[in-house]
């Protein structure tokens, strides 16, 4: 590449300029953005499933409505993010259908947390409060990404995630101030979700040329460890103040740095889940597969030539 376009592109990024869908961009920039964005879209779509199981069971009309609205938002996020991914991937010849096919065939990644079961109502609260809290950390940092179409939709996504957090917090606070059985249910859910939450941010970034470039191009702006610490600072004290236990004997605040020291989570478990070995991965992908099979005729009806009206 000697026509100077790469240098000009890098200079633009360096002075804080943003990249639009129709701008020239290095193929590697496009590829890295696409990978990040399609993983996010897949995660929103798959992330709707654990809580979705609780829409029919939510206790009370208020909860039924709020959990339905929350799941609706997550799918709405998937819609917006897939749209950004579709435009980005057009030069690669990848359509939304291809992305969804890759997802259900187990070829595409999505966040580890959405592979775990949500066996009780308390899981719904913990997911909406802590998993969405974790997601808000990473998505909040991405508001400053250099790819403008992604940054724009993230503004709306983050605003909605902040509402989800309130919804989750409200469920958690209600259970924490409830009966003994309700508190025990909450403690169990925290027990289940704590390690997946630490995993959520990914292992500490290696200093590879690849990751160096991701930061230089401002595709990402904060490291996994920075995000994890930001999460721990906000949420660990809150969980403890509810009188709940955090299942990590090594967890303590370093008063000098303000960082939280935590016991090394089992990263083998993380890699096993990310590679498709999570407890509910296969069953949830099967649900998506079934949906695609059963609804195929509707998509066909929308594209039928006789439908041109």
């Amino acid at each position, binding site marked *: 590449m000697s026509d100077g376009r790469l240098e000009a592109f890098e200079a633009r990024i360096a002075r804080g300029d943003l990249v639009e869908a129709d701008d020239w961009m290095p193929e590697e920039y496009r590829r890295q953005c696409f990978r990040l964005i399609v993983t996010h879209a897949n995660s929103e779509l798959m992330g709707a499933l654990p809580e979705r199981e609780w829409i029919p069971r939510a*206790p009370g009309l208020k909860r039924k409505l709020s959990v*339905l609205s929350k*799941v609706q938002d997550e*799918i709405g996020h998937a819609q917006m993010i897939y749209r950004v991914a579709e435009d980005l991937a057009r030069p690669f010849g990848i359509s939304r259908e291809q992305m969804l096919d890759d997802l259900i065939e187990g070829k595409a990644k999505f966040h580890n947390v959405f592979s775990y079961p949500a066996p009780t109502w308390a899981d719904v609260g913990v997911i909406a409060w802590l998993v969405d809290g974790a997601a808000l950390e990473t998505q909040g940092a991405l508001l400053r990404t250099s790819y403008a179409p992604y940054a724009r939709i993230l503004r709306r996504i983050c605003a909605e995630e902040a509402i989800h957090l309130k919804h989750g917090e409200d469920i958690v606070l209600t259970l924490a101030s409830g009966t003994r059985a309700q508190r025990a249910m909450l403690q169990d859910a925290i027990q289940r979700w704590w390690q997946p939450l630490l995993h959520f941010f990914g292992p500490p970034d290696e200093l590879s040329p690849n990751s160096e470039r991701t930061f230089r191009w401002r595709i990402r702006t904060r490291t996994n460890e920075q995000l994890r610490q930001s999460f721990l600072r906000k949420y660990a004290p809150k969980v403890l103040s509810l009188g709940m236990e955090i299942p990590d004997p090594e967890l303590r605040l370093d008063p000098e740095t303000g960082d939280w020291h935590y016991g090394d989570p089992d990263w083998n478990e993380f890699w096993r889940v990310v590679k498709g070995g999570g407890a509910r991965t296969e069953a949830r992908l099967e649900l998506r597969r079934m949906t695609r099979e059963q*609804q195929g005729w*509707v998509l066909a*009806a929308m594209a*039928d030539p*006789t439908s041109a*009206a």
Partner: protein
Amino acid sequence: MPLGDELSAEGRAALGEYLLLMADDELVIGHRDSEWCAFAPLIEEDVAFASIAQDEISHAALFYELIESMRGLGRDQLAFGRPASEMRNATLLERENGDWAFTIARHYLYDLADELRLEQLAKCHLPTLRAVAERIRREEHYHLEHGAMWLVRLSRGGSEARSRVQAALERVVRESRGLFQPMAWEQILVAEGVIAARPSHLYQEFRERAGTALATCGLRMPPDVPPGEHPRGRTGGHTPELRELLQTMGEVWRSDPTASW
């Protein structure tokens, strides 16, 4: 003034029955609609249909609150605490979702029936009830627009879509008379001036409007069923599908009805 205070005791009881019937209709169809969330034919539709489900459940909540103000039973108690035998919803609405064609056919025809009774209620002389009916009608307008869009789309979507939607209409229309099941207390509401005519008498107008709408899509309006051959959900003639729905819906709430959730 609390709702219904200007009515006789008999009139209040009849009004309570009517509100409960509408609330149960909205709750049960809202629950069924919500089951589509994440499984609709396209992601864009997941979002649209989840809004419709929320509207229906919110309307149920509004009606239950009106009953709460009259009878003192909490809205969650009314929604989650009654057995199938006490549910007043029409049988059509408790049916499992089936395919998208059945869902759309039921969605459109139920919302048409709902529009007819809301039109009537919006002219009611009880200000609280009139305000609630007007508020609900504004949202139901979108439902009809959404349902009509899909009916047109499926009717013009090639032979498979067309035959599926026609088959679905046969099923839905056969049970739609149950939405207008005559109830003993209807006459009291008319006598006390709450509504101008018995809700069950709206059936003919329903068939006419539905027939016109279907004709514009080139779809056939299935023949009427003789009175008495329709399922009578409103007086407890429910199917195992409703019992299963209620079982699921109340699972957590009933584990401790006195707890705060």
